């Protein structure tokens, strides 16, 4: 019988340890390079816009300047604000996005709870239909929705009462608010899905205890379930707010003439060309043109002004957001 060579075995293990260590060190360095690189790619456009926003006209022709402007000025910001009519526009957009977000969160959390915790005939078929609302492209419903809200009428009640063709709701906030309140707004299916997954994971004992203590179903929902559903609430509120704020599809379908940030930003280049000469006081008319480089600077500044409320909000909530996504049970 051969005695195992303990000496060489120990050397082998040590070598393996050293190898593992160097591999993990290499991986660590590689990881940091990747993370820093990707972060840079993400942050670079924002930094560039920040730099442009405070640059003087002179500085764009100076190739030695990288990022940090030499002639620091607020001129671009002032012009961009004037073209956008910034503060009233911001107030309007925030109010609009906040109200649709509130309605979405309310209606979708109710529906999500209903699907997660109750048994009623046809439940699975109805939930399949929720998934269907996620899958059907919005452009399929576009024309009927447009016609529907152009002459808004529920079951012909208005037609019966007044003999008219219904109310024209286009260019009001009505269509967005109505669709949000009835859980069929922008990406509502996804929010219902998120809420359902979360509520399914809650222990049944909580509800049973509430029931025995005499709380009805609706009271249980508002006093027990909803306060515990903070993670999905944060996720849904953030998504709903941001997507509504940025949405161009429904906004141009229903509100093409209204004061909404996304509409104004998408027409910003044209607007700058049109209004800037007047604002700068060099005259009006089709022949008066501003330096195209300056137009581009002001467009960039305008975009920065448009996204800055979102970035500010994100800085506040991002910690809760990332944590909440992990716990909100997107996974199920």
């Amino acid at each position: 019988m051969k005695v195992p060579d303990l000496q060489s075995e120990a050397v082998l293990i040590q070598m393996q340890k050293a190898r593992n260590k160097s591999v993990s060190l290499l991986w660590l360095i590689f990881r940091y390079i990747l993370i820093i690189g990707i972060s840079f790619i993400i942050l670079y456009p924002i930094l560039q816009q920040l730099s442009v926003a405070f640059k003087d006209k002179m500085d764009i022709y100076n190739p030695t300047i990288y990022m940090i402007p030499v002639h620091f000025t607020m001129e671009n910001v002032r012009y961009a604000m004037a073209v956008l009519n910034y503060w009233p526009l911001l107030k309007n957009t925030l109010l609009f996005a906040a109200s649709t977000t509130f309605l979405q969160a309310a209606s979708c959390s109710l529906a999500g709870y209903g699907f997660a915790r109750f048994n009623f005939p046809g439940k699975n078929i109805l939930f399949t239909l929720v998934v269907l609302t996620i899958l059907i492209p919005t452009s399929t419903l576009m024309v009927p929705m447009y016609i529907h809200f152009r002459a808004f009428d529920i079951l012909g009640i208005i037609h019966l009462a007044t003999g008219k063709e219904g109310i024209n709701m286009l260019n009001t906030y009505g269509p967005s608010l109505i669709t949000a309140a009835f859980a069929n707004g922008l990406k509502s299916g996804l929010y219902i899905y998120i809420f359902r997954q979360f509520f399914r994971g809650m222990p049944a004992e909580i509800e049973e205890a509430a029931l025995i203590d005499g709380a009805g179903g609706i009271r249980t929902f508002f006093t027990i379930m909803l306060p515990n559903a903070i993670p999905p609430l944060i996720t849904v509120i953030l998504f709903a707010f941001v997507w509504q704020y940025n949405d161009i599809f429904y906004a141009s379908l229903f509100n093409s003439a209204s004061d909404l940030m996304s509409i104004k930003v998408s027409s910003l280049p044209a607007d700058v060309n049109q209004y800037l000469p007047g604002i700068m006081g060099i005259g009006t008319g089709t022949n008066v043109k501003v330096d195209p480089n300056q137009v581009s600077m002001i467009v960039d500044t305008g975009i920065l002004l448009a996204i800055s409320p979102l970035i500010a909000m994100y800085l506040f909530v991002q910690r809760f957001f990332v944590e909440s996504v992990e716990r909100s049970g997107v996974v199920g």
Partner: protein
Amino acid sequence: MNIRRLTLTQKRSLLGVVFILPWLLGFVFLFATPLFQSIHFSFSNLKIAPGGGYTLDFIGWGNFKNALSVDPNFNRILTQSLSEMAWNVPMILFFSLFTATLLNTKFVGRPFARAVFFLPVILASGAIAAAQTSGLIQLTGSSEVAKELGQQQNGFDPLSLAFTLSDAGMPMWFIDYIISAVQRIYEIIKSSGVQILIFLAALQSVPISMYEVAKMEGATAYETFWKITFPMVSPLILTNIIYTIIDSFTNSQVTTTIYNTAFQAQNFGLSAAMSWIYTAVISVVLIIVGILVSRKVFYYN
């Protein structure tokens, strides 16, 4: 029917219906009705009356024929966005899984890295992106120059990478793929925010004990990834593929074409037909992908 006479189960199910009632009403009036109307429109010639109503003439398959054989652009745009999707989905999927694993490990500055990586979820938007490109076009006067300028600003030379890779003996199609991925890294990052979130949530739900066992058995990080992490998150790969496909379609040129057909060309019937062709194509893609992927997916229960 007296509500007090119902059994507890019946009361519960009634309550459940009460909870989903807002959605149900919305679904019937704001989703199902427009959906059927849209089918109806696609077979008709729709004229909008100035007062608020509209008139319909039934014309059968005419709109579909128009969309597929008369309209000069629709076919091209549809196939183009299909091939773009086939190109993008694997890249986004790979990138988001990789990033999620990266962000899931503990390292100094992780909260900051996470905050930065999810910033694109906030900023990726049609309106802002559109204004950004048109701002650049303004500056240079033409879209071609703007494109070139954008690539130059990358400060990256794809040729040298191509030579390195072909020296390493990689097949040509793979080199093409890698280079296009590198050049469009910003786009890929921008469209993979939600997918990273989903994968990250999946990674968090893998039981830690599994990793402990693997470590005790002496598995390397590479083995651990392929034997534990990958199978455990594989159900979410399907979710993410579906999400990515839908997302890439909603931001595609086809949607713009359908919109313009309806509201600029005022051809509502044709627009409805286009959108139904589009829906059919997406459904076919989703069904095929769903069947193919769900065969490979591992469910842990």
